[in-house]
């Protein structure tokens, strides 16, 4: 959009922009050379204008210089808005007192006489504003103004805005010379404004670019899930100067949810549950794939309703851009400003958040894919270990056990037979332990079956007991223990384990769960036996739970030989 010679770098500006500026000014000033003082003033003005590179500061400066150059009481610069209405979006003025400004209230938007120069961008001089056919008259509290000079400010061939001067000091009208020098000033101002604008835009672009790079770097680190989304929203809000930023995402347009919010203290999970996304701008953006801008978000009937969400501010303009990755659009990033901060919205070119969002979405996808891959690799690895244990370790142990048993038949020596049988029992126990490990390896952490639950409870108890209880499963426990039995069984196991760890002073605890015609849970320890003061209600509950299911609970306790809880219920 810009030519190479006006690249918005500081050196570029001083090399070429400023030369152009001077040449232009000298051409324009030709007609007022007789007025040496004004000429010098203009030149000074041009130099200081070029030095001040913030756009707002520059506009204020131009207006102030204009009053001095043309000898006017008041001056203003109206900046044209975009869009078909072509009205003023900014009005920078000079000469009025703060009290006057306050009394007038709203700034003009470019109707009446001010609109005349907008529609027909030519210099215009008037003796008395009020007598012009286009004049609307002044609002209440406005100081009297009669003489008028208006000049368009162009950037290249585009009208940027208009300089308005009123009330020639000392009475009388603005002269031909006044007009010429203001036209010259307007030309200089156009160049300076363009430079300032390009510089600001370049700075913003650079900020977006560095934010984009930063987010890619951040997401390729260990950040995951909603942290990553939060980082995207935070960064986008920071760069855009938006008051609020949020991300809406989901598997498809029908399953969208608010995921993160930046800039307000919102209870996101609660808000996400409250808001219906059936009607939302996010849906529209995901459907069409195109970014959306709206002027009045809080009043927009297409936006989701935020009335129910505590802490959600009243919002004016907003930009909603798609989060698009290689598999489609999975969400949107929204940036919104309060009506008071509309200027921040105007300064943002929607293209920049769009490309930021695109990069962020790709980075999110890569991060997600990497996370999945790692998890998958882990599961595959576990599967492989489990398979090896099955195919190699258990097979071998089993075969060794079988041959030991056969060996036992070859002898009549009872001592040898006993020894061999003990060895076979040990091998069987080892096989069961291996199976238990395989089960633990293979079951996803959140598996809901009874075997996984019991294993988890026993593992937790191991933490408080300082030793690991032994755990055995016998029979198809996952098949035979129904969901009616499971909650009671787990409650009983919990109670028995807690008794063993609190009162028994045990050094070993054995847990066995057998599924056959009956479901039998045995929890036995080698501790002190039940103390007289034992929690009798705990034992009673275990019994009640068994009886309710048509079973029984047997608690045997021998002082200093341990306690054994045997809880039995029918399998079906």
């Amino acid at each position: 959009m810009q030519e190479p010679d006006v690249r918005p770098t500081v050196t570029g500006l001083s090399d070429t922009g400023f030369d152009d500026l001077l040449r232009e000014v000298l051409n324009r000033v030709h007609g007022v050379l007789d007025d040496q003082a004004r000429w010098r003033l203009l030149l000074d003005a041009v130099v200081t204008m070029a030095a001040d590179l913030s756009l707002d500061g520059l506009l204020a400066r131009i207006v102030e210089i204009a009053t001095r150059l043309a000898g006017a009481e008041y001056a203003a610069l109206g900046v044209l808005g975009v869009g078909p209405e072509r009205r003023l979006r900014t009005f920078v003025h000079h000469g009025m007192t703060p009290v006057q400004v306050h009394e007038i209230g709203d700034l003009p938007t470019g109707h009446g006489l001010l609109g005349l120069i907008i529609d027909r961008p030519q210099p215009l001089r008037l003796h008395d504003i009020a007598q012009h056919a286009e004049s609307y008259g002044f609002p209440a509290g406005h100081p009297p103004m009669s003489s008028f000079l208006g000049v368009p400010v162009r950037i290249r061939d585009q009208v940027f805005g208009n300089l308005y001067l009123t009330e020639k000091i000392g009475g009388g009208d603005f002269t031909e010379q006044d007009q010429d020098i203001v036209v010259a000033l307007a030309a200089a101002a156009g160049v300076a404004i363009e430079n300032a604008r390009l510089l600001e835009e370049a700075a913003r672009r650079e900020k977006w670019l560095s934010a984009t790079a930063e987010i890619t770097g951040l997401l390729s680190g260990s950040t995951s899930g909603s942290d990553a989304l939060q980082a995207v929203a935070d960064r986008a809000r920071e760069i855009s100067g938006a008051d609020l930023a949020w991300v809406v995402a989901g598997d498809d347009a029908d399953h969208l949810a608010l995921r993160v919010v930046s800039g307000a203290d919102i209870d996101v999970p609660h808000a996400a549950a409250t808001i219906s996304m059936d009607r939302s701008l996010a849906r529209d953006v995901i459907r069409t794939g195109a970014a959306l801008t709206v002027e009045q978000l809080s009043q927009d009937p297409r936006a989701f309703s935020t009335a129910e969400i505590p802490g959600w501010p009243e919002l004016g303009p907003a930009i909603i851009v798609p989060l698009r990755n290689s598999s489609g659009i999975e969400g949107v990033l929204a940036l919104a400003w309060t009506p008071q901060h509309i200027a921040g919205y105007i300064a943002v070119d929607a293209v920049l958040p769009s490309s930021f969002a695109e990069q962020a979405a790709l980075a999110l996808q890569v991060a997600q894919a990497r996370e999945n891959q790692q998890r998958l690799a882990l599961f595959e690895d576990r599967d492989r270990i489990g398979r090896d244990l099955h195919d190699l370790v258990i097979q071998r142990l089993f075969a060794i056990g079988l041959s030991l048993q056969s060996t036992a038949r070859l002898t009549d020596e009872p001592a040898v037979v006993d020894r061999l049988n003990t060895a076979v029992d040990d091998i069987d126990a080892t096989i069961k332990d291996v199976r238990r490990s395989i089960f633990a390896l293979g079951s996803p952490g959140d598996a809901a079956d009874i075997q996984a639950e019991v294993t988890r409870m026993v593992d937790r108890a191991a933490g408080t007991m300082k030793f690991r209880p032994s755990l055995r499963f016998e029979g198809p426990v996952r098949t035979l223990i129904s969901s009616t039995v499971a909650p009671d069984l787990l409650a009983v196991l919990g109670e028995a384990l807690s008794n063993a760890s609190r009162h028994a002073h045990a050094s070993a605890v054995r847990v066995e769960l057998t599924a056959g015609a009956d479901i039998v849970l045995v929890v036995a320890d080698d501790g002190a036996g039940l103390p007289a003061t034992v929690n009798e209600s705990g034992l009673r509950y275990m019994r009640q739970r068994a009886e309710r299911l048509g079973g029984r609970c047997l608690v045997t306790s021998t002082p200093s030989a341990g306690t054994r809880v045997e809880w039995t219920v029918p399998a079906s």
Partner: protein
Amino acid sequence: MSDQLAVPPTGEPIRVFLLDDHEIVRRGIRELLEGEGDIVVVGESGLAEEATRRIPALRPHVAILDGRLPDGSGIDVCREVRSQDPSIAALILTSYDDDEALFSAIMAGAAGYILKQVHGNDLINTVRRVAAGQSMLDPAVTTQVLERLRSGPKVDPSLQQLTAQELRILELIGEGMTNRQIAGTLFLAEKTVKNYVSSMLAKLNLESRTQAAIFATKHLND
């Protein structure tokens, strides 16, 4: 333990075929069984294909089949053999736990299962009982397994992949039908039934939880 049950009424020795890809396991089982005197191992193999060919020819009373084999599964072997000769009783030998062994046995149409542990199950007693025509599978438990498959725990996503036809066939498997009997009931070619069972076994592959893991991964971040 060896005199708890009588030998088959005929008085002839019980003929057993062994299918396991580990020679050391076959040897151990053979020694154990033949030590009884009234049981003979009439054949052995380490490969599914070979066993499928040889078992119907040897006509053993009992075929002991390892669930996992390098070239296939003992479940397929069992279904194939019993479709040809329903009088051959089969036991699925597995190193997995009871739940998965039970499921494998039902899928295979076997008379029972044997876990690979020495004292845990009474191998000889089990062989004698199935040779005498008994099933070690409790019909009520079989029903429960099928119920678990149909409405089962949501953690196993593989179940949702079954088609209506596969579910019907699963039901008939649960009733102990061979492929040939199922083919007759559903008016399908036996080959078609066989393909259905194979694809179902693949879908319900209980030996690998990777599928579940992938499923879990997909849905963890929503």
